[in-house]
């Protein structure tokens, strides 16, 4: 039972969170009547995906993906700590033995341990996704405003009635 809790809930809880959030958002997009509530649901839906991606890049005990190149102590410490961690893979040792072919610059720069720095790629991808989401939301709000101006209502059911009623010119 504890095993089940450990694997299904504890190890995967970020995935549970993102799925639940995403489904709430998707439900709102489909089921809600008010256009603005649909847009809020869309926003929640997109945010859940962003959460998923960012949670991919998390590493236990890792710090932010900004190299502290003025802090030699941090890297010396990280050397010690990494030796105590279990399960080295091949490219970790490669990173440790990184030769100094960096133009003789900051000596601290080449003792970087990838295990202690969060994966920067999901962050980059999600910067793009957030901006795209904001742009979409902006266009959607503009459309909603125009719909309100032209139809006088933001409720989908009333809009459909007005459109079916045919008192709308094409």
């Amino acid at each position: 039972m504890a095993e089940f809790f450990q694997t299904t809930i504890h190890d995967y809880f970020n995935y549970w969170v993102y799925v639940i959030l995403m489904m709430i958002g998707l439900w709102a997009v489909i089921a809600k009547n008010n256009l603005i509530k649909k847009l809020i649901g869309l926003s929640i839906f997109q945010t859940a995906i962003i959460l998923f991606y960012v949670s991919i890049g998390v590493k236990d005990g890792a710090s932010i993906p900004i190299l502290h190149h003025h802090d030699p102590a941090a890297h010396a410490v990280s050397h010690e700590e990494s030796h105590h961690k279990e399960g080295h893979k091949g490219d970790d040792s490669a990173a440790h033995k990184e030769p100094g072919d960096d133009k003789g610059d900051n000596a601290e720069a080449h003792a970087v341990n990838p295990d202690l720095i969060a994966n920067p790629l999901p962050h980059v991808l999600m910067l793009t996704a957030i901006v795209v989401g904001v742009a979409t939301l902006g266009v959607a709000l503009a459309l909603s405003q125009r719909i309100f101006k032209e139809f006088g209502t933001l409720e989908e059911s009333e809009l459909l009635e007005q459109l079916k009623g045919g008192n709308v010119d094409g």
Partner: protein
Amino acid sequence: MITKVLATFAVVITGALLLYGVSDFPAFGDPHSPANAGVEGGAPSISNYYITKSYEDTKVPNLVTSVLADYRGYDTMFETVVIFAAGMAIFAILRVFSDEDDIEPNETHSEGNTFTDGDHSRIIVGTTVRLVVPVIQLFALYVVAHGHHSPGGGFQGGVILGASFIIIALAMDLDAALARFSEKSYFRLASVGILIYAGFGVLCQVLGSDFLDYGILQKIFLTDGPEMARSHSMLGVEVGVAFTVTGIMFAIYANLSSRGTLKSAL
């Protein structure tokens, strides 16, 4: 009612499928997951490359900025294009022109320096805003410029800069903000931003290298070695991004709050 039932059904099925896919996933926080450390059979792990080699290649400590502006700069350019297109789309959808002079800046009543008598709340808010806005803008420029060393960069700085104009519009009047940042100006600023970004890329092509291969710009920046040229070019493109984002953020606010008229607003 039937929509809600259908929606629940669709949502439950989608959620179940997603969770079924999760069953093979690595645990949360695993530093040796395929995304973090690569897999057998594929190329060496790209994120490990970014972490270990990107400082060598670009001399920029902020890994996110170096990936965003250099390795995946092509994506970032299109992200800027997305924002620009959204601004244009909102203009195309909402903007209504009245019979008077349209695209010229409104030189109507308030220039934002005068307040109606007895309007004490606006005096307090207005004065505070006028004191705070320069600081906000300075901070925005700091965020753009310091993106190499701390979290920041073009998008973040551009949003703060755009917000500094929005706060003028909120505290005083949309006209006050438009007097300082007219419609012509912000659209022009947005176009110039993308021109800067794409211009850097084409400059690299003209000098003989690939699109957005900043290393070749060492001939122009006169650095010894391509790394510092990359660092400087990243700052350049981030400035371009900031311009576009500033212009479009304010454009979106102006059009949405005035329902396209740019005359009366919140």
